[in-house]
């Protein structure tokens, strides 16, 4: 039965999608609505939230639990500490966010490279795929915090010539551990997508040309994988940020948002608005990271007629 090819149907869908601008407007409305809901909730519900039997179903509304939004912004404008040369909190947060973003980027890149290598290995050798894939899935059930100190330890033992392992590199490695997973799974799906019966004709074509696996890989499998790879890269970016922050908390690396979150715990009771700054910073880092991936996607747009989850 003839079905419209993926490529042409994609074009039809995109022509149906609404103008960007209305989405942007609605998005802003959504953010404002959440802000309004936060304050309304705070205003309307009792301090103790709503407790049903033994379980608190709705959160407390005290200023410690849910500071006013304007308090968060006001706090961000004030200095980080009372030290005379202390930068404003927003600036410190931004610097921390920049640091975390940098480490995440390294972790993302390392994870992407490793993920791609694993995917190529699994695409090339069927037994490798069967043997490795379950372990790749399994690897993500190992809690990150259990391996973070180990990675730091392994890294610290490493010293090759003038190259000295830095603590931030351990954090980047931990970030890459989370980032590699979606890449390897997504890339494998992409690399093997020409094997699907519906697309088999292209693979037959390359066989008819009498060319080897690697030529087929570069000319067919790799370009075909792009629609699968791009969402994976985006997921990997979000994962890399999560991994970086967790590892910063875990190893105590100074400079990033994770460390700020740990330290600000000490003032969570008396200065509750303070800890919302690094949370906002983390959202920014995540958005920036996925935004950077969008740039990569832009470079690959010729291969990206449709994206597949």
């Amino acid at each position: 039965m003839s079905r419209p090819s993926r490529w042409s149907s994609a074009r039809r869908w995109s022509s149906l999608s609404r103008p960007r601008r209305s989405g942007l407007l609605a998005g802003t409305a959504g953010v404002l609505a959440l802000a309004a809901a936060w304050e309304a909730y705070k205003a309307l519900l009792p301090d103790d939230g709503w407790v049903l039997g033994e379980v608190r179903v709705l959160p407390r509304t005290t200023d410690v639990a849910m500071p006013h939004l304007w308090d968060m912004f006001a706090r961000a404008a004030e200095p980080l500490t009372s030290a005379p040369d202390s930068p404003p909190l927003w600036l410190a947060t931004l610097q921390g966010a920049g640091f975390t973003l940098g480490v995440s980027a390294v972790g993302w890149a390392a994870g992407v490279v490793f993920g791609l290598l694993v995917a190529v290995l699994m695409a090339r050798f069927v037994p490798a795929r069967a043997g490795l894939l379950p372990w790749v899935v399994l690897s993500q059930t190992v809690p990150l915090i259990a391996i973070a100190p180990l990675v730091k330890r392994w890294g610290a033992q490493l010293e090759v010539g003038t190259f000295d392992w830095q603590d931030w590199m351990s954090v980047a490695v931990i970030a890459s551990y989370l980032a590699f997973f979606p890449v390897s799974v997504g890339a494998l799906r992409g690399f093997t997508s020409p094997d699907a019966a519906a697309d088999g004709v292209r693979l037959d074509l390359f066989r008819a040309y009498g060319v080897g696996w690697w030529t087929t890989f570069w000319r067919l499998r790799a370009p075909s994988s792009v629609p699968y790879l791009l969402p994976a890269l985006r997921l990997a970016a979000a994962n890399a940020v999560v991994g970086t922050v967790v590892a910063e908390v875990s190893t105590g690396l100074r400079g990033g948002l994770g460390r700020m979150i740990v330290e600000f715990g000490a003032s969570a009771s008396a200065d509750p608005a303070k800890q919302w700054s690094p949370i906002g910073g983390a959202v920014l880092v995540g958005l920036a990271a996925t935004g950077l991936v969008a740039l990569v996607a832009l470079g690959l747009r010729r291969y990206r007629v449709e994206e597949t989850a």
Partner: protein
Amino acid sequence: MTGVRARVRGDWLGLGAPVVVGVAAVALWQAVVTGFGIEPFVVPAPSDIAAELGANLGVVTDAALATATNALLGLVLGTLLALAGAGISAAWRPVADAATPLVTATAVVPIVCLAPVFYTMFGTDAQTTRVVVAAIAVFVPVYLNTLRGLRTVEPVHRDLMRSYAATPWEATRHVTLPGALPFFYTGLRVASSLAVISALVAEYFGGPVDGLGKAITSAVSSSRYALAWAYVLGAVATGLVFYAVTAVIERNNHAR
């Protein structure tokens, strides 16, 4: 090229190869640790881990059950919320657009940032925060995948329902929902192991003293690394059970 022989080979590979790889990896690990006399704080030997697991099976199981309960509640709660949200978003485009930045932000914000404030909001004497954290982690993939599924209605099916003058509810019941099911399951599969990890990570930041996350730090802080890894095995097993159960539900529910 695919045929019975390939399938049989595939089945053998599907079960055998991972076991071979696993056994080989564990053997190599054991050999390296004993051969080079590696300290347990670098990496404990598999045999020691197994011994600790054997000696502490009850404690590990209790901890795993505590974490699994929160993960399961979070999985159910997050899935229900995601389904409701995706339904509303699919039915009403402006809601979907308005939710987009919030969902994106939720997808990228690390749990470690949220857990401390959630304990303050929901109380640190209850499991609520762990459930909420797991639910949030679950929400994102289930919502995104389901929404995509609800939106991917084949044009020919849409025309068909219109030609029958079907009501919106009939169209939803007969075409949209069944068509979205595979997408929903893709999201659920991702969410299942996420739920376990998230509930576990949340334990680091407060709540009643139970669960695998707490147990791992306790063991590590007194250098009992083999015991810590026995708890990690508990976490892996829990994640695997969650993943397998969702896979089985998926297979039974949409045998295609």
